[in-house]
């Protein structure tokens, strides 16, 4: 299975009926494709919409209805639109149940770095800092390693997105949580052994006696 699809399918299992969910750009966006149709999840787009629907059919898009990347979307029945102060009030105020974000690094304490590489890539943080500060649960969806280098590190070397630790990290190899503030291997991806995860993880991971395989 494609690594991104493993991540998206596993993250989708974390969503519950009635959740208000904000998906970041990249792998997180794919999560919406794997939410079972009987699960009533509300997706927020931070440019001012709850009830984000799929890409409209050919010829049915509206230039004033887009996602936060400016791409055409649709709005589901019951959708609501609002201004940016309301949108970030929802985010910072703890009204968003789950946010799923991409990551550059997550460290052993659960700190996320995902908004800049000094001297190389300085796009700006957009809504990421508010989402990590305010959403009830923060899930990072990212590849376990980039160019052979672990993205789960002892301590973030890139600038932090927030001092608040994330709730869960889902990669193409593992699910990692932070009970008692310590990175812990909770699940492995199908066909991946605990030894293989530990071999490519730079941060020290606590390993419980039982580490189940991800159910996708």
């Amino acid at each position, binding site marked *: 299975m494609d690594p991104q699809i493993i991540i998206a399918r596993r993250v989708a299992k974390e969503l519950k009926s009635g959740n208000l969910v904000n998906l970041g750009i990249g792998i997180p966006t794919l999560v919406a494709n794997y939410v079972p149709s009987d699960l009533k999840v509300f997706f927020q787009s931070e440019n*001012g919409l709850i009830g984000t629907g799929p890409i409209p059919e050919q010829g049915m898009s509206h230039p004033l209805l887009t996602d936060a990347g400016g791409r055409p979307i649709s709005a589901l029945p019951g959708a609501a639109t609002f*201004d*940016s102060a309301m949108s970030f009030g929802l985010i*910072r105020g703890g009204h968003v149940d789950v946010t799923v974000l991409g990551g550059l690094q997550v460290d052993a304490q659960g700190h996320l770095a995902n908004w800049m590489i000094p001297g190389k890539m300085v*796009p*700006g*943080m957009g809504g990421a800092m508010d989402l990590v*500060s305010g959403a009830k649960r923060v899930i990072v969806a990212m590849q376990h390693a980039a160019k052979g280098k672990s993205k789960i590190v002892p301590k973030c070397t890139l600038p932090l997105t927030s001092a608040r630790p994330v709730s869960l990290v889902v990669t193409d190899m593992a699910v990692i949580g932070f009970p008692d503030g310590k990175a812990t291997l909770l699940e492995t991806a199908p066909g991946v052994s605990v030894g293989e995860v530990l071999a490519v993880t730079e941060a020290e991971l606590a390993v419980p006696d039982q580490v189940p395989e991800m159910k996708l």
Partner: protein
Amino acid sequence: MKAVSVEEAIGLIPAGASIMVGGFMGVGTPERLLDELVRQNKTGFSLICNDAATPGKGVGKLFDAGQVSKLTATHIGLNPKAQQQMLGSQIAVDLVPQGTFVERIRAGGCGLGGVLTPTGVGTLVAEGKRQIEVDGKPFLLETAIRAQFALVHAFLADYLGNLTYVLTARNFNPIMAMAADTVIVSAEHIVPVGVIAPDHVVTPGPLVDYLITNG
């Protein structure tokens, strides 16, 4: 509210002015006002806008024409020209978390000195800012933002300047319409008074200084 031509309204903006522009990745941006700003070719603007849009679209046109010297924004990653101008030090860029950005503008329009936010505590964003504890929790003091001009895009405007917005084109527009000395509005449709019901008015007419006439 005064109804004027786009040339006249944009002619009020001097070189070097501070300008807030509504829109999110160019959606809900007053393109007619920006086209005229480019045509009049004044420079040195201090621009306050969520993002730098993309080249050729929205405020991206101002970077194409080299009219911006300072930018306050939350994200400029999708405009390579703005990135180049930042890395080449042609423009000074202040990057602000998006929730903080909108609250600072809201504060500026509502007579507040600033806001206390948890966003950015313990990060680079906190550098040089006062940290204040409230009930044992740390917050950053983020000061208010105002501008000399706000360029606002509405869906409907009536003859008195009452405004409504549509879909995801609302974004920063109604917030910015309160936070500038002079508010200039372009609307997709100008309609008679009464078409917008009182309960549906988002920006009340007295906030609007200039409404751009059709044609």
